[in-house]
């Protein structure tokens, strides 16, 4: 078979160009031997993006199979645009998290904004109305010269997009660490609500059905973005600016409303948004899922610039575009609804039974300015399978890290003034208030935010579920978590801790975890030590998801997060969606009433400081012995607290995480301005500072009215959860027996100003 035509000006494909497009020499050889011919320039572009790490998961795929993905509540597992879990009465929660790390480092505002836009489209493509977003952010050390610019730009970009489209950004997390100096992380999460029977899928079904392009016109932005996302950064990164997309949230709002209206008419057989690798991946993936082929007429692609080549049209990552497969004869309905919302729509191809991805275009014809006449020739003709299932998959070599000599029981020097130490910690960028960030997000639009940012361990959002029988209100709890420092020290345990913290946060607001989505941010998988971290972390996630009842329903992998050979902390971020049976079960993190009893649930600290914020601040490095996690004990703790929430025995619940026990109590005091007098629970004889600031997991501090004490104690006993009454709510200070006595007002003041050093 002869090679499809190149366009005027396009070079012949070659091993050099293949390398430039990110293919290895072996992969180039594989292309030649499979095709039995030279690919056209456009074909090489198509193959290289579909074989990029970002689209093909070539280094991660064999590991991801170990994650648990099933459960009675799972409506849709991984493999679609987003996952879905049942929330009762025929409705489901549709959610996913995705990374937009590389673009956000190059251009923080647009990179972050289009990250939000992309994840919103993934969710509404499924037929769900987005109801809430979260974000998980990582920046370099607070005093790195680029950090203020990147933090301000990313937060403004997330707000700029989410606020405009009207989906509340209800929570998230942020951490600063030197490992992210040259490679920040922006992971965006969105959850939406759909009727389970009305979910839409990305399938190109029905041979002969028309393919309709809806939304923004195609430009040259974001070409080869997926390939960029699959490479390390080096000195020439600034020259990659043209690979960053530009977002238009107003266009996306129109697209969202039009799509939901079109879906309701049932005139589509499939739909997919054009995300990474744009037109190419959306059409190829839809054809693949249906076992069909697709033929595209590139002359018909709506465009906003002159002289676009097939290569550019196929690889453009222009935002706010959808590809729909209409049922034959029902195109009119799609066009009418698009006209109502002032959106462009055109038929750009057909579903075929050939199993091939075929594109035609006319050399010398430009519909933008009417130059030339259409007389299309084949420019791409590739087997769909080559781009999907037959894409390379690697079992890359792994090498466990050489054990560090100093890990044993590093506790740092005991500080003299523990109160001053607590104040400093509470006021530091990794621990203090994030209000400067979430005040820039509309976190209340849609009238559903019941627990707002800073009020609880997870956000709680009321969702409106309307069907023929009327309107029901349901309550979802959502949280995202990961502490890469603990993953660095112990990839298995640290990843398991991320899942445990996230599900614990759901339980602490009174919700039951239903499902999880992940965003696995790691370094270069071709480095055996990085690959080992990845594989270990996947096993840790798998163990924790199984133990804690949170199957993985969707996710994303972002590798090559390195700059000049320096990898980020391994960061397997997870987000969990849970549900409250009754909104009256909800719990905040802050103490609420003078005289309430404060109790510590879970095994008290052994004083292990490994990976803690305190130790990093004192040693300047991520170090120490791993804190470890007992998943059985974690599960018992979560079951017990959920049962207490259901019985309305508690007034507040807050888990011990970043900063340790002392910070947990400080936050519970600051939230509503109450003091507390407590003793310091300890499992072993360890220095006070280690007990105060250790980040050992599986601990929750609760407050309760004195008359609940018996029932709470009894539930703990039944679940085998260690229980210790440690004090009472009251006074103007946080007094931890034998350790410190600090005015709450002073703690609040320091907490509130934690980001000032970066943003003002």
């Amino acid at each position: 078979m002869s090679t499809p035509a190149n366009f005027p000006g396009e070079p012949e494909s070659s091993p050099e160009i293949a390398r430039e497009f990110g293919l290895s020499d072996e992969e180039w050889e594989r292309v030649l031997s499979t095709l039995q011919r030279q690919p056209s320039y456009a074909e090489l572009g198509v193959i290289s993006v579909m074989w990029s790490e970002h689209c093909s998961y070539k280094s991660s795929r064999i590991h991801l199979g170990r994650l648990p993905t099933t459960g009675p509540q799972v409506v849709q597992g991984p493999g679609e645009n987003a996952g879905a879990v049942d929330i009762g009465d025929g409705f489901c929660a549709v959610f996913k998290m995705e990374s937009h790390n590389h673009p956000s480092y190059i251009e923080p505002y647009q990179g972050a904004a289009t990250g939000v836009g992309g994840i919103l489209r993934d969710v509404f493509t499924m037929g769900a109305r987005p109801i809430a977003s979260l974000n998980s952010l990582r920046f370099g050390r607070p005093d790195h010269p680029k950090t203020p610019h990147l933090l301000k730009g990313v937060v403004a970009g997330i707000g700029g997009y989410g606020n405009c489209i009207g989906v509340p950004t209800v929570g998230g997390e942020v951490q600063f660490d030197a490992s992210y100096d040259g490679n920040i992380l922006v992971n965006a999460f969105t959850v939406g609500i759909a009727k389970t029977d009305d979910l839409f899928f990305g399938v190109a079904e029905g041979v002969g059905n028309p393919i309709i392009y809806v939304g923004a016109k195609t430009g040259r932005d974001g070409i080869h973005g997926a390939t960029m996302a699959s490479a390390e950064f080096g000195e020439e990164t600034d020259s990659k600016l043209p690979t960053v997309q530009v977002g238009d949230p107003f266009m996306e709002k129109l697209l969202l409303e039009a799509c939901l209206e079109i879906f309701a008419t049932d005139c589509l057989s499939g739909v997919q948004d054009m995300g990474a690798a744009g037109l190419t991946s959306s059409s190829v993936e839809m054809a693949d899922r249906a076992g069909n082929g697709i033929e595209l007429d590139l002359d018909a692609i709506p465009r906003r610039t002159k002289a676009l080549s097939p290569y550019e049209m196929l690889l453009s990552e222009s935002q706010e575009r959808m590809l729909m497969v209409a049922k034959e004869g029902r195109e009119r309905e799609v066009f009418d609804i698009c006209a109502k919302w002032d959106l462009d729509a055109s038929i750009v191809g057909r579903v075929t039974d050939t199993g091939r991805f075929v594109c035609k275009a006319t050399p010398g014809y430009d519909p933008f300015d009417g130059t030339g006449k259409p007389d299309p020739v084949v420019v791409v003709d590739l087997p769909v399978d080559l781009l999907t299932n037959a894409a390379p998959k690697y079992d890359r070599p792994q090498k466990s890290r050489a054990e560090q000599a100093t890990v044993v029981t590093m506790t740092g020097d005991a500080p003299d003034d523990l109160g001053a130490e607590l104040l400093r910690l509470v006021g530091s960028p990794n621990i203090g208030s994030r209000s400067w960030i979430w005040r820039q997000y509309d976190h209340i639009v849609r009238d559903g935010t019941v627990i707002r940012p800073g009020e609880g361990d997870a956000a709680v959002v009321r969702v409106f579920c309307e069907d023929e029988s009327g309107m029901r209100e349901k309550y979802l709890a959502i949280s995202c978590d990961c502490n890469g420092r603990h993953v660095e020290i112990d990839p298995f345990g640290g990843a398991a801790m991320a899942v445990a913290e996230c599900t614990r946060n759901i339980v602490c607001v009174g919700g039951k975890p239903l499902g999880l989505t992940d965003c696995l941010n790691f370094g270069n998988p071709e480095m055996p030590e990085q690959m080992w971290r990845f594989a270990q972390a996947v096993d840790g996630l798998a163990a924790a998801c199984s133990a804690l009842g949170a199957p993985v329903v969707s996710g994303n992998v972002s590798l090559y997060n390195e700059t000049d050979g320096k990898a980020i902390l391994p960061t397997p971020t997870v987000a969990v969606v849970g549900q409250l049976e009754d909104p009256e079960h909800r719990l905040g993190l802050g103490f609420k009433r003078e005289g309430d009893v404060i109790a510590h649930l879970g095994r008290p600290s052994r004083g292990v400081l490994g990976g803690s914020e305190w130790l990093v601040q004192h040693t300047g490095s991520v170090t120490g012995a791993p804190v470890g996690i007992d998943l059985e004990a974690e599960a018992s703790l979560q079951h017990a607290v959920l049962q207490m929430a259901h019985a309305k025995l508690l007034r507040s619940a807050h888990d011990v995480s970043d900063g340790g026990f002392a910070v947990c109590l400080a936050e519970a005091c600051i939230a509503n301005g109450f003091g507390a007098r407590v003793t310091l629970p300890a499992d072993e004889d360890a220095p006070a500072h280690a007990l105060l600031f250790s980040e050992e997991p599986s601990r929750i501090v609760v407050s309760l009215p004195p008359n609940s004490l018996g029932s709470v104690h009894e539930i703990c006993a039944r679940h085998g959860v260690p229980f210790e009454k440690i004090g009472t709510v009251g006074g103007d200070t946080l007094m931890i027996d034998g350790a410190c006595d600090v005015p709450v007002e002073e703690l609040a003041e320091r907490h509130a100003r934690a980001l000032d050093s970066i943003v003002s």
Partner: protein
Amino acid sequence: MKVAVVQFPGSNADWDALHTLRDVVGADAWYAFHKNTSLGDADAVVIPGGFSYGDYLRAGAIAGFSPIVSSVREFASRGGPVLGICNGFQILTEMGLLPGALARNAHLRFECRDIYLRVENEGPFTDMGRGTVLKLPIAHADGRYHTTEEGLAELERHGQVAFRYCASHGGAPDGADANPNGSVSDIAGVYNREKNVLGMMPHPERASEAILGNDDGLALFQSLRRHLGLQ
């Protein structure tokens, strides 16, 4: 009570208004799409928050030319009560139904948080009495109310200032309760001369239910109901 909620492309608090009016206040409420010209037999009109037309050009500027706008104008000229919230306030000033303009917040950031405001003058939406303090959320980037000195004097003379930002005890805004956007004279909402059109930056429709932790906003809708003679 029958209320039309105008839906522009980019309106995004349209649901908040519809839900509160219909499900909480108990009104008969519906969306009036911007390409139509009918408001139905509405007793009152709400122009909700959002980013109409993406707020391109200027917040609220393009919406002022939509087909539905002539009907809103006509409704207002007959004395019908019109409430513009957030972007709705911006649209009403762009339409010339309210005096002044809304500029970018003084600190240049979008800001979403609870603030306090004090009722300055009574009207269809504010019969709760001068000096009443309400806690309501704001969520905007362009909320800095601006008018000339003469304009300000005019507003005062005719009792058109509906709300001012204040401290929780009702005094001048200060410290944590500072004026959130730099509005001239701490103005958070204004009436037209006839007092049937109100524009305000804070969101009463997002604070009208106990489950949301605050139902201070309900007072405005109850006032409207009484104004319409519907107890």
